[in-house]
């Protein structure tokens, strides 16, 4: 195990973990930031999405040794008062069913809207297709992303 320093949500942290430990497990087990979820461990479901220097990344396949001094943002740090337009749109559309995948959905959508602030329906569908929702709340996720893009 080795000592690693990392920046998460504007604060710096130090952890002692195996160097191949995915960022996901550092966040969850060591920093107790459990908003970032474990779904598959192989970058197929998107539940673990966080931002690395503003870009959505799958934290389940990002080893801590590759994080370096990049800025990591998790769902807990997405907005100061949980009032990001996406979070507000999620509330407006009452999106979640079980809710487990939703922080990953929001983080993916936030990064996508930064790149493409006025997406078409098809562009939203394509951009969000990397994130699974086993409850199939897809129609509301799509509506909420659309609403947020217009705010």
């Amino acid at each position, binding site marked *: *195990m080795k000592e690693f320093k990392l920046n998460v949500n504007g604060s710096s942290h130090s952890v002692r*973990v*195996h160097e*191949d*430990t*995915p960022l996901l*497990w550092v966040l*969850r*087990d*060591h920093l*107790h*930031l*459990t*908003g*970032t*979820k*474990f*779904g*598959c*461990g*192989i970058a*197929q*479901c998107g*539940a673990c999405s966080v931002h690395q220097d503003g870009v959505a990344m799958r934290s389940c396949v990002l080893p801590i040794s590759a994080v370096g001094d990049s800025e990591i943002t*998790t*769902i*807990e740090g997405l907005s100061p008062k*949980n009032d990001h337009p996406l*979070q507000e749109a*999620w*509330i407006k559309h*009452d*999106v*979640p*069913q*079980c*809710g*487990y*995948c*939703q*922080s990953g959905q*929001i983080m993916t959508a936030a990064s996508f809207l930064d790149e493409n602030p006025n997406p078409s329906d098809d562009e*939203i*569908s*394509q951009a*969000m*297709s*990397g*994130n*699974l*929702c*086993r*409850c*199939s*709340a*897809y*129609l*509301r*996720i*799509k509506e909420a992303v659309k609403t947020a893009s217009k705010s």
Partner: protein
Amino acid sequence: MANNEIKRREFLRINGITGAALVLGFNFYSCKNSSEVRAEATEWSEMNAFLSIADNGQVTIMSPNPEIGQGVKTSMPMLIAEELNIDWKDVIVKQAPFDAVKYKRQVAGGSQSIRQGWISLRTAGATAKEMLINAAAEEWGVLPAECSAKSGIVYGPAGDKKTYAELAPLAIGQAVPTDVKLKKPEDFTIIGKSKKNVDLAKIVSGENLFGMDYYREGMVYANVLKGPFGAKLESFDATSAKAVEGVIDVIQMKDKIAIIAIDTWTCFKAKKLIKPQYSKSNHNTPEITAKLKALLVAQNGEDKRKDGNVEKAFKQADSIVERFYSAPFLAHNTMAPMNFFANVTAEKVECIGPIQTPEWTQGRIAELLNRPKEEVTIDMTRMGGGFGRRLYGDFALEAAEISDKIKKPVKLVYEREDDMQGGMYRPASEYVFRAALKDGEITGYEVLGASVNDGNCVRANNFPAGAINNYRVAAYRLESDVTTGAWRAPVTNFIAFAEQSFLDEIAEELNESPLDLRMNLLDKAIENQKNNKELTLDYDPVKFKGVLQDVAKHSGFRDNMDTMGLSAYYSHNTYVAEVAQVEEKAITKIYCSIDCGIVVNPDGAVNQAQGGVIDGMGHAMYGELTLKDGVAEQSNFHNYKIIRMNEVPEVEINFVKSDNDPTGLGEPTLPPAGGAVANALYRATGQRLYSQPFSKELDKVLG
């Protein structure tokens, strides 16, 4: 109403509603859910097991059943709030702990939470309301009948008024009424008005909420390695695993191996270094399918239903239609893999996590650890999906056993591969449907089913039973070491597709529209019911017709039959009809009409119903799990496909207006989806589908 009366009395006896108490310093609830600024609550009056009223006017409602995404943590408290006559903004919802004496049926399964809580939860609210009114009447020296309650205030005949907050400490001393009257549907102010998911703000901000998120100072982490189905663990070498820094122990639990470490990743990492040797397992999908098919031929077993003379009808038929349908195993694949926390000490066995069946699990853990049931506590967290998988507390038992062995608080976490390859699968099943046709009518009908571990893989008294005079249903069971269980809408999740596709073929054979065929059959069932009071039917043909008419109207089915597929099914006491629309060989829209009685939380209900339709379509299109040497060949989402956003059609939900008591909603929209999709795809491709996943069959046609 007599029946309701009995239920209420029984409720009072069973649900410990007499336990009113004043609780001081009970102030750990925050005011977060309320937008208005108000004083912190300092004194709570516990009116009964379900609700407490604070001195600042807030009301805490305990939601009794486990929340798996079906929305009961919002809709069950709505039932209580409705009868208590309070404003929803004053409500704080809390998940009740498992307590079979206080809360009775704490199960998430069978789409039964609202249906079975309909009287008891409303009674809890109404009882408390009456105690508050009685307390006010006593204060004012008037008759309770002269008082009324609205929005948390009791009004007296002389213009007096007192808030529930003021009255609650007095009300807890009142006798508990045993004959409260419940509201009529036309007087509802909360039921039928959409309320947002009570955990919404926490979900979108990533707050600790799910079992997977549970943390306790000093806890360790664990993972469990399992072998192929039916195989014995012969030996294993854990030397390398134990040498990994951070590994605390590697222990054997019969045929399983538990890895305990200081964090989750170290468990996963160390597990891959263990070299287990298992005995050979002979469970392979092709052999299982062959055995199931052989059962359909052998037909050793009792019929589930036999009406008239089926043999004669088939002998005298002008033609016979016979079709075989094949269902693969499916994994549940909840988004949160299995997990549980356990802390076993000399004094107690504390278990916390996502579980659909706390009572059953408590009993099994007590038995496993040889401890009295009273020492085993189960706290239910929000679940990252259930779909039936979390009915089986195997993972909770594993966590408890590990904690018992290592004497530490432990959180067990499955990897996706453990979850997918060590599931309680939807059993693989085979069916044959036969119809005897004579003079343009169905004169005989036969359904035989064979399923892994499930001897009741049919729905004997469901449609079209009662509509066809010569009718036979039989089912056969193949015993297997492959663990199987309830998967959202058990049995009907597949048989509905088979039946509704079969009926589509019959309609074509008889040159009748798919809608008319069903309506005519239902008319026959109605007529047969009239002529034969002994006729056993699980469904009401009148309600069944209602959803068919509704979906036909909304979809314009009659005018668009060449691009639409129709399907309808009754399950979990609810009637659902769906029409799928196909454009250029893709499903673009599904119309869904539902009769589930009163809809408690309409917006949540739409979400749930849409999810069921898409889930049904997704698994029919793509879902498949196959076994080789006792191991699932699919291990993660790269080779087990779940439907994604770019494959999802538009879904329009319509509820048939009803004042009947609510029935199930978590499952019933799933079963008809496969049939609607298959029948629509037939219009576009000319290809009938007989096995799932459809994507495999379609590949052959579409290339």
